[in-house]
């Protein structure tokens, strides 16, 4: 399927500088943050919706897989071209097309970097709420595909709660517009279906999002614990008080030390866990909530509760948190991160369980996660050269995911199913559930050429984690 003729045709669409096909160039696109090695046949950089339409038609004619990719920061292998074909990289479709502050809307191309959108409206007192830890690099299009979350989704919801309308190119080249910039457009909520569909239903070429008003006041607290269980107990105790913090993150001592060594954010080196808690809103509400939260933390044996005294201190604490995966990259050749979700009241027993798994397989597992949502991110450290250890990682990960499922949770809270977990889907969905999803997929993507091998089970390895457990990049 690799032919000079195809490359020429693609070059006519996107220009000579809009394609890559040499082996050494393709190597850069054979993995994302999950790491799975499979090269696309050709990489293209469309600049317009029309480019995408023409490429889709070409792919249809040639019966080639078509895979969309933003910045490649995805953690579930969503942008890996598992069966080769044409990779559409959106790094040149990065224009903010329209900002409408009075309606609190923005219309953007999919390659716009998440943080760039917030920065573009920051001076006016607005921001785009979903804030994945990779927000300095990841794109809005990728966020839409994976329905990404982030620390502040506890109070404000994930990507789907902030996306109102999409322009989508279907695999046959047809362009449709879903949703509207206003609420309640009559008809089925197709926008809601496309968000999180991991590039398997259509290629998103334009996104209309809701912008949020920056709160008047923000307070950031760091609660420091000598025992992990005290930190996890605090989480449910805070919500039981009727307080919804904007963010409620946990880091265990192991991660904390790695983070502190890398970022010098001022985290304590000698504790078992910290909670990073943020409250936002009117200054009166923020003061009251911060005081109450501090009291709850102390009731639950927090050794110390610090408050960020300045915007700089706050930024530093968040820099540490958001750079955590990268910091861990300094101390381990590889790590594998999971994304299971459990009811937040079960956190204490879950963290115990992860400790048991750690011992059982003789592995190191760090925990740094969205505690308020019950969204775990156990980081399993390993060295890919050690085959025996790599096998243990897969088994340990499976044990943890099974426990999440037993607790009534989910296999993924924000990273997506992708290539990694498609064969775990039967753990939480019945055949009938999956069949209903298949009907949607078959309707939009009848030949299965759009991002093949993702989201729905392939049936090849039922109940197994897939994807190469190699690498593990910073996010």
């Amino acid at each position, binding site marked *: 399927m690799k032919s000079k003729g195809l490359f020429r045709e693609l070059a006519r669409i996107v220009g000579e500088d809009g394609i890559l096909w040499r082996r050494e160039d393709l190597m850069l696109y054979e993995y994302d943050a999950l790491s799975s090695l499979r090269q696309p046949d050709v990489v293209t950089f469309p600049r317009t919706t029309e480019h995408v339409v023409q490429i889709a038609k070409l792919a249809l004619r040639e019966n080639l897989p078509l895979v969309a990719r933003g910045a490649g920061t995805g953690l579930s292998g969503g942008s890996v071209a598992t069966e080769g074909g044409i990779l559409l990289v959106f790094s040149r479709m990065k224009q903010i097309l329209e900002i409408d502050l009075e309606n609190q809307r923005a219309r953007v191309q999919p390659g716009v970097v998440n943080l760039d959108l917030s920065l573009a409206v920051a001076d006016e007192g607005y921001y785009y709420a979903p804030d994945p830890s990779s927000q300095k690099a990841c794109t809005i299009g990728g966020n839409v595909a994976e329905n990404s979350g982030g620390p502040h989704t506890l109070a404000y919801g994930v990507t789907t709660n902030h996306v109102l309308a999409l322009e989508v190119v279907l695999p046959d080249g047809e362009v449709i517009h879903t949703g509207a910039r206003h609420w309640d457009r009559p008809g089925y*909520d197709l926008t809601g279906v496309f968000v999180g569909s991991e590039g398997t239903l259509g290629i998103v070429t334009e996104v209309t999002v809701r912008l949020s008003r920056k709160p008047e006041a923000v307070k950031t607290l760091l609660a420091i614990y000598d025992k992990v269980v005290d930190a996890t107990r605090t989480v449910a105790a805070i919500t039981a008080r009727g307080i919804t913090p904007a963010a409620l993150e946990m880091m265990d001592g192991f991660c904390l030390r790695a983070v502190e060594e890398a970022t010098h954010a001022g985290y304590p080196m000698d504790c078992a866990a910290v909670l990073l808690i943020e409250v936002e809103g009117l200054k*009166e509400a923020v003061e009251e909530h911060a005081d109450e939260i501090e009291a709850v933390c102390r009731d639950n044996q927090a050794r110390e509760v610090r408050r960020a005294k300045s915007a700089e201190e706050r930024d530093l604490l968040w820099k540490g948190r958001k750079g955590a995966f990268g910091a861990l990259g300094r101390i381990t050749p590889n790590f594998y991160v999971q994304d299971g979700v459990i009811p937040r009241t079960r956190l204490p027993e879950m963290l115990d369980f992860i400790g048991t798994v750690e011992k059982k397989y003789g592995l190191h597992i760090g925990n740094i996660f969205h505690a308020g949502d019950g969204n775990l991110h156990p980081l399993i450290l390993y060295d890919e050269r050690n085959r025996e250890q790599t096998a243990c990682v897969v088994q340990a990960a499976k044990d943890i995911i099974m426990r999440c499922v037993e607790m009534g949770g989910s296999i993924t809270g924000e990273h997506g199913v992708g290539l990694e977990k498609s064969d775990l889907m039967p753990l939480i969905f019945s055949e009938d559930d999956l*069949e209903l999803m298949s009907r949607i997929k078959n309707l939009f993507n009848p030949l299965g050429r759009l991002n093949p091998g993702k989201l729905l089970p392939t049936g090849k390895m039922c109940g197994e984690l897939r994807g190469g457990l190699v690498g593990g990049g910073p996010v």
Partner: protein
Amino acid sequence: MTLAVDSVRTELAALVGQSHVLADPAACAALAVDGKVPDCAVSPSTAEQVAAVLRYASEHHLALIPRGKGSKLSTGNPPRRYDVALPLGELNRVIHFEPADLTITVEAGMTFGDFQALAGRNGLWLPLDPRGGAESSLGGIIAANAAGPLRQGFGGPRDMVLGLKIATPEGKIAKTGGRVVKNVAGYDLGKLLTGSFGTLGVIVEASLKLFPKPPERATFTLRAGTLGIARDLRRSIRRSPLEPLRLVLLDSPATALLSDSVQVHERPGAELWIEVGGSHRVIERCAYELRQLASAAGVPLTRLDGAEEAWERVSNLALWLQQKYRDVTVLKAALPEVASEEFVSRAQQEAEAERIALASFAQVGVGIVHLCALQQALSASVLGLVVRLRQAAAELGGTLVIEHCQVDLKSQVDVWGAGGDDLDAMLKIKSAWDPKEVLAPGRFLGGI
């Protein structure tokens, strides 16, 4: 119904029990939709029974309309076929509730009132004020994605549904989403079902996100007088640090109606109603901010006590106004929020030209405008009004839906308006999921 009606009833009774099948003509007439009376009503008491009824309907080419309390069934085109009513009120159990997780799973027939009472005992609530209010069912609220003015502060059902269990038109039970607050496993089919008005599946169970109830709430009114001042106030409020829970603009007739005492013909002027929530100190701060805004605009500010009843009326326009006026037409425009006042003004002009008494209730912070045509008007003039206001909404970048009207109007105009370039995809979804058109055929957009 092509089969002998009696044999259908007998066979349905075998699925749900004799006492759960109603064939009494008066009872069936009460379940009519747009004047179409079903042959019988079947009230399943379990999800499995719902699925069994659907399987039977699918095999025998029967058309069903699922219903909770029926408060939102006036929205929709007349059904092409309607053989069996499917009331779901018996599905009203709590499946799972862990207050500290802020999540709950209940059966879909539970009334919103019962649900809020249960959540409220734990200091929680589902911050919705949907049409139908306490009497409506959760399944109906989700099927209609019914959000009231509280959408300003909290979003709508779409943002609160974590997972759904449905009975499919072919009679299977399937689930989407889950019970936890964050979940991206698989296609988000819950979004497809939310707001699908019962045309894709019957919602039998819902998992929802709950919220802590604000310790106090307070409602203030700003007597703007004119729409122009109301628009400026809306802008100032949206730019202020205030985080309103509800924000509604009442035009002059709406103000008159809501305050009860004044005749509709009098002109009390436009008012902005704003609700805020939080601790006592937070409310005091909001009051201070509002006083600043009011004095800068030179308009009076009043704090209303016991505003809850008035808010309920605003959420339940058709239900409330029907007590006074026989024929009420309720139109709902969805617009970019900045166009709200402009649309209200256009609506006033059009209504005046048609000599129709019109009251406008506009959720100006989210761009949802409800227009109520009050007096019994010639259906030709209401039709003219709908057509011109739909055009006006389109010009302002929005859409207009007839939420409630007399049946004869529905034979002249599509209540939903036209679809866009994604209508074809919607039609395909309907035929992929409900190939035999078992569920509410013809009621939704584009003949779905």
